[in-house]
């Protein structure tokens, strides 16, 4: 990962800690970063070198208006205004790892075709904590390609229980 991503993540963590809402800001930035990574048009727009920084910031403000904290919007505007909009997803992931680490946890990125309920997230976090021996901060990414089930990534460990993978295995066996 590039140095500038670590730098932005460290700066964001410091601001979130200053705001006293690390988890909330981190979760919102993770969601925004995921949206940028999965939406080609949005990523192209905020990466367009011919578009002014003010216009890019305005686009993100419009998207987050009423949906995110002011601190979150400010951090997004900072990254987009600096011309690092395409790296927002990586920066947000790095921030989530730092936020979890600062709280003595690990980040568990969970991919699911459908949203997880709070109860499911809690039970999943407990099961992962019991398995890994450390507290985990579950970050859910909605990914229709999973089809069904979950794919959990904690560090270098991947626990794949998705329908997509089972279909792929069936395809390979045939």
């Amino acid at each position, binding site marked *: 990962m590039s140095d500038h991503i670590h730098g932005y993540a460290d700066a964001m963590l410091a601001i979130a800690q200053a705001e006293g809402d690390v988890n909330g800001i981190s979760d919102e930035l993770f969601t925004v970063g995921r949206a940028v990574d999965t939406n080609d048009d949005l990523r192209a727009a905020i990466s367009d070198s011919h578009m002014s920084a003010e216009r890019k910031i305005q686009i993100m403000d419009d998207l987050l208006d009423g949906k995110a904290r002011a601190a979150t919007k400010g951090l997004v505007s900072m990254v987009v205004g600096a011309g690092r909009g395409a790296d927002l997803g990586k920066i947000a992931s790095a921030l989530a790892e730092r936020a979890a680490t600062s709280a003595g946890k690990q980040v568990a990125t969970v991919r699911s*075709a459908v949203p*997880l309920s709070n109860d499911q997230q809690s039970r999943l976090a407990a099961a992962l904590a019991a398995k890994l021996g450390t507290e985990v901060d579950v970050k859910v990414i909605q990914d229709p390609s999973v089809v069904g089930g*979950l794919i959990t990534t904690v560090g270098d460990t991947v626990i794949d229980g998705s*329908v997509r993978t089972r*279909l792929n295995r069936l*395809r390979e066996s*045939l």
Partner: protein
Amino acid sequence: MLASLTVLASEAPNGKFLPGDIKEFWWGSLAFLIVFGLLIWKLSPVIKEALNKGQAAAVADTTAAEQAFTDSRIKIADATAKLGDANAESDKIVSDAQQTAQQLRVDSANRTQQLVDEMWAKAQIDVESMKVQVGADIQAEVAAQAIGAAEQVVHASLDDASQSALIDDYIIRLGVSL
């Protein structure tokens, strides 16, 4: 000379052939003999030499003619021999050409047969390869159809309850595998 004697004799006073004075006869005869002897003495070598020259020339001409004749015979024989050689050479060329043509026919036939064999072998390999490829394609197509059908069935059956059940099952198995 005989004509002169006749004239002299006709002038004899007695009208006979012999002069009236026999001395004239003798002197005349003597003169004749002297003249004749001189002629024999002086002209004989010249005549003889001329005859010898003529004979030598005739002999030389004859020899040259014979030589020319001989040369002609030799040339004729040589030409005949050459003609014979030419015929033999012609026959040899024709024979060689026939052999070459025959060899070319054989070679061409061999090459054609070899080409046919190679094409046949390649065709067999291609057929076998196509069999394998078609088999693989059919298998892949069947697999794709089966996977597609399976995906359709899975997607159709994955309602909210099924999705939730899958997630719960995942969490339970994660706890069991501790």
